């Protein structure tokens, strides 16, 4: 079975690819660039295409399939024209599926499930990375706010942090938010660096 994965995010494409190679009898082609997409698809002649829902080339691909079908090639778009549940589930997972040349539904299900799990795994990874980045930025802001308090009030670092924490507790806000306010105020008062 020939599978094409279209994903502009190379890491995600490789995560999906890795999952699918464990399946038997699969030849996998990964496309990460939108240039010449249709020509490459035509060359690969895949039985099934997986692409991420956020890919702007989806309309281009659907047009291509519609025109090919008009030219009398047997092409079924999506898993099975009546299988709404599978389509809905694949959309929930962020993947759109195009089955070319009417592949049997039973052979597609395991592939689809695997791809969906892989997409979700990638989404989790990304969320964790974003959270870690936010934390890093927050820590920098807190450090800058502490420095401002230390300079302005001539207090020690632990004392500056205590002040931040007390203000946060008494105003029911996060320390990072208080720090952000201090840094912003400092910059706006014109005595920033």
């Amino acid at each position: 079975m020939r599978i094409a994965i279209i994903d502009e995010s190379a890491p995600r494409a490789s995560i999906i690819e890795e999952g699918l190679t464990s399946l038997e009898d699969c030849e996998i082609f990964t496309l990460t660039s939108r240039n010449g997409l249709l020509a490459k698809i035509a060359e690969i002649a895949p039985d099934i295409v997986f692409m991420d829902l956020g890919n702007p080339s989806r309309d281009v691909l659907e047009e291509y399939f519609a025109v090919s079908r008009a030219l009398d090639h047997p092409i079924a778009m999506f898993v099975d024209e009546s299988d709404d549940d599978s389509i809905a589930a694949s959309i929930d997972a962020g993947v759109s599926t195009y089955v070319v040349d009417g592949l049997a539904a039973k052979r597609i299900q395991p592939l689809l499930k695997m791809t969906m799990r892989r997409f979700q795994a990638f989404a989790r990874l990304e969320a964790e990375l974003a959270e870690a980045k936010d934390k890093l930025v927050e820590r920098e802001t807190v450090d800058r706010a502490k420095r401002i308090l230390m300079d302005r009030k001539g207090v020690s670092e632990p004392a500056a942090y205590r002040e931040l924490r007390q203000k946060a507790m008494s105003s029911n806000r996060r320390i990072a938010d208080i720090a952000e306010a201090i840094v912003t105020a400092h910059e706006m008062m014109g005595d920033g660096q």
Partner: protein
Amino acid sequence: MTMQLKIGFLPLVDACLPILAHEHGFAEEEGLDLTFVRDVSWATVLDRLLYGHSDAAHMLAPLAIATTLGRGRPAQKLAAPFVLGLNGNAVTVSNDLAKAIGADGTLGDPAEIGERLKDVAAKASASGRKLRFGVVHRYSSHNYMLRYWLSACGIRPDEDLEIVTIAPPFSADAIAAGEVDGSCVGEPWNSIAVEQGAGQIVLATAQIWRRGVEKVLALREDRLEENKTAIAALIRAMCKAGAHFVDPEQWDCNAEILSRPEYCDAPIELVRRAISDRLVLRAGDPPQEYRDFMFQYREIANFPWVSQAEWLYSQLVRWDGLEYSAQDAEAAARVFRPDIYRAALQATDEPLPSASSKVEGSVSSPLTASAQRGSITMENNTFFDHEPFDPDHLQDYIATQK
């Protein structure tokens, strides 16, 4: 009680009415809490609508009809109770092609440009490299307007030149890279191509059909039945947003909102051009006014005329190479829902026409239309070739266009 609606959209200026209804509090006044899902392809906007990720969507009017008729995917009935605007698209061509067709930095006469394009297309075809144009989707008014214009000028789409699909965010790049020689796309994407020096705007779609139907608010028909109260509230809120949108005093503030990263994510100045009907056609030139470029609100622009749906059906038959079918024609006409529009605005001051269908392209001087309430003056609604479309003779119209 607050009713919640999630609305799908693509980053285009004509997604403005639901967005501004939300941002200016018109939706809240009507008891609505709107949230938005932004996508980059129509296929995704449609999937989310069909599978319940969104309650309603900013949608290409022909795509709503094609989906109902089961073109390209299994048929699912959609309903369009509100037109999100008329026109707002333009034809941008590469600098080389602009030179070849003698573009002089103005929006020229469509018939004259078409005549020159015909010669250039014939030469290109004879040399073995046909001209290629991009449109945003197979089932888009962009595709239909471009094809209507070309064929009325004696250029046969798909034979004398090629038409391909290009996602709006890639249209400027595709022109710059020589992948296409021109494209028909909505704003701000033409202006972005101009700013990048990739090409020049030579025609507004409003010059092809002065009151051409563009995007609609689309819902699944069954979801519309379940959510009638909320949709009526949304229609009222969008009407208020429409009145606000056409007020020149508000252009700056609306351009600022629509340009934000969560909406169009484009420079404010470029968004403002579409809003104010003042486009820069060539990089470095001063903006030029074309009053009806993106038509909103006035002349009940948001009323879903059944005749508009029928015209779109005529073009679907024409370009998909289908046979006319009375059953399909009826199903296509039923996608547009003036009944829902009327019911929503019954208790307001918004004018309501007494008919739900009209002869399209037949008004060339101001005409007072009969109204159920209020007074409605139609100013200008013509096709560039002066051929009107009478929905009572749909089948004949299709036959003459083959």
